[in-house]
């Protein structure tokens, strides 16, 4: 256990991760539809500014600008041949900022979903998914990341493929899924099912959890779902800064820095060890979160109604775990053998 993230987890009560990548880059002028990863080469100063924004706001961990840098996503921009290069540069820029921070900062190599549906429902096989994630992982490793960071995954199969890729690359990793559909992932996975999945992996992650999804309240409910399984593994909470709203041609997230500070404290009290933001979370949110985590005393594990009261209501009545799993069942005729 010599990697930086393990060391920090062993010595610190909580760690703060970063906020949004996309929202920050769009504010710097990235056009919609362009691959953000191209900026690693074309506008490296903007990527440095993105990373520095998180570090200066107090993040202990930040994610590289490589979320969509897998062959399947890059193919849509005709750049699949540049997978290794774009990941390596994303990591190198991160290394540069982290090493100049004057304190230990973890560079986490972001790996987002392929965007494909996996077999047998879709066309992407396990082998191909592993190959794509492995290619990306090797690029990030060559650029010097401390840990791989798999995020926004919906399918258990894809999570497993990423875990296998991390094993092949010989890298420690973290993995989060996005619980955005009635408390489950788009593919129907519950928080309890992710805990179960993580513990069965041959190369388990250093930490696991939830990112993105539908807003801070839902994400908190998911964190409580992990905790309820009695897991000992560090939990990651990376929620969006509220819900996107449309105003005069612009989109902004309605979560204020004060709300995100509240969320950070609740996430810590719920049992999350790594706390950060996702879409809409800007440096000013991170500063408020850091300040709150440093100054506010630890409280009891929050109940669902406390979360709803402080952060707003939930998007669905249940999160799909427990006795009411799956909600009402349909009256069925005979089942086939």
């Amino acid at each position, binding site marked *: 256990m010599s990697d930086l993230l393990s060391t920090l987890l062993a010595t610190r009560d909580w760690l703060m991760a970063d906020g949004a990548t*996309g929202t920050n880059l*769009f504010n710097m002028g990235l*056009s*919609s*539809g*362009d691959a953000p990863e191209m900026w690693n080469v074309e506008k490296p100063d903007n990527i440095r500014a993105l990373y520095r924004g998180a570090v200066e706001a107090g993040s202990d961990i930040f994610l590289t600008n490589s979320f969509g840098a897998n062959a399947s*996503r890059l193919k*849509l921009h005709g750049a699949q041949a540049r997978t290794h290069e774009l990941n390596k540069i994303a990591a190198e820029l991160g290394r540069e900022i982290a090493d100049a921070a004057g304190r230990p900062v973890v560079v986490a190599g972001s790996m987002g979903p392929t*965007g494909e*549906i996996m077999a047998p*429902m*879709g066309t992407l096989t396990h082998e191909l998914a592993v190959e794509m994630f492995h290619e990306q992982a090797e690029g990030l490793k060559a650029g010097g990341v401390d840990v791989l960071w798999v995020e926004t995954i*919906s*399918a258990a199969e894809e999570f497993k493929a990423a875990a296998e890729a991390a094993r092949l690359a010989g890298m420690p990793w973290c993995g989060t899924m996005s619980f*955005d*559909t*009635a*408390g*489950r*992932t*788009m*593919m*129907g996975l519950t928080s309890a099912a992710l805990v179960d999945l993580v513990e069965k992996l041959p190369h388990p992650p250093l930490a696991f959890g939830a990112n993105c999804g539908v807003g801070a309240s839902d994400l908190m409910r998911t964190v409580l779902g992990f905790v309820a399984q009695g897991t000992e593994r560090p939990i990651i909470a990376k929620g969006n800064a509220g819900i*996107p*709203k*449309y105003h005069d*041609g612009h*989109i902004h997230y309605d979560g204020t820095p004060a709300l995100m500070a509240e969320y950070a404290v609740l996430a810590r009290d719920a049992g999350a060890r790594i706390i950060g933001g996702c*879409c809409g979370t800007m440096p000013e949110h991170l500063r408020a979160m850091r300040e709150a985590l440093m100054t506010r005393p630890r409280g009891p594990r929050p109940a669902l109604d406390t979360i709803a009261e402080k952060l707003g209501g939930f998007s*669905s009545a*249940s999160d*799909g775990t427990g006795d009411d799993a*799956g*909600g*009402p*069942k*349909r009256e*069925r*005729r*005979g*089942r*086939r*053998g």
Partner: protein
Amino acid sequence: MADDQEIILSELSDDELVLQMHDDLYDGLKEEIEEGVNILLGRGWTPYDVLTKALVAGMTIVGYDFRDGILFVPEVLLAANAMKAGMFILKPLLAETGAPRMGKMVIGTVKGDIHDIGKNLVAMMMEGAGFEVRDLGINNSVDKYLAALEEEQPDILGMSALLTTTMPYMKVVIDTLKEKGLREEYIVLVGGAPLNEEFGRAIGADAYCRDAAVAVETAKQFMARKHNQAAVG
């Protein structure tokens, strides 16, 4: 248990067979659906009745349970796949018999946006509901939408966006339709994770659809309204 007994589709009465087909669609059993379709056709059912009473009605149940968070994407994909197998048999027969059409939709993800899982689900569920669908894929400019509308003369235009930065492009398409005096020709439905009803209204769409099941229900409602207006007019 009786549940474990092999079910022989051809021995079921029409009513029982239709209910069994609803269950088989729900379970995504492709071969059973093909068999059921052929049995009903063999018993003299019109292709249109097979489509609406067995397949579309079955997919409606799938849609409701998807909407209610009981079924998720993998189950819906399997069901849509089974539905498609049934449709494959019915399609030429429907054309031959001049069966009434449910409606036609042109659908695509807007310019700058390359996400398509949600849009594909809508396309599949719309086909599952008997609609004819022309899928334009991802990254569609105004010109591409206009050309497809001209060519297909659909009832419905569906637009999808997954990014907060691409969703405003839907307004560009709608504004262009207005400029050309074409807006009233089509029912415009929009969807995508970051959207909401307020946004749909703000940009001048007919409706925002939260998910694929809602898209199908909304499309059916608008089609019914359209038919009623045609009957009155």
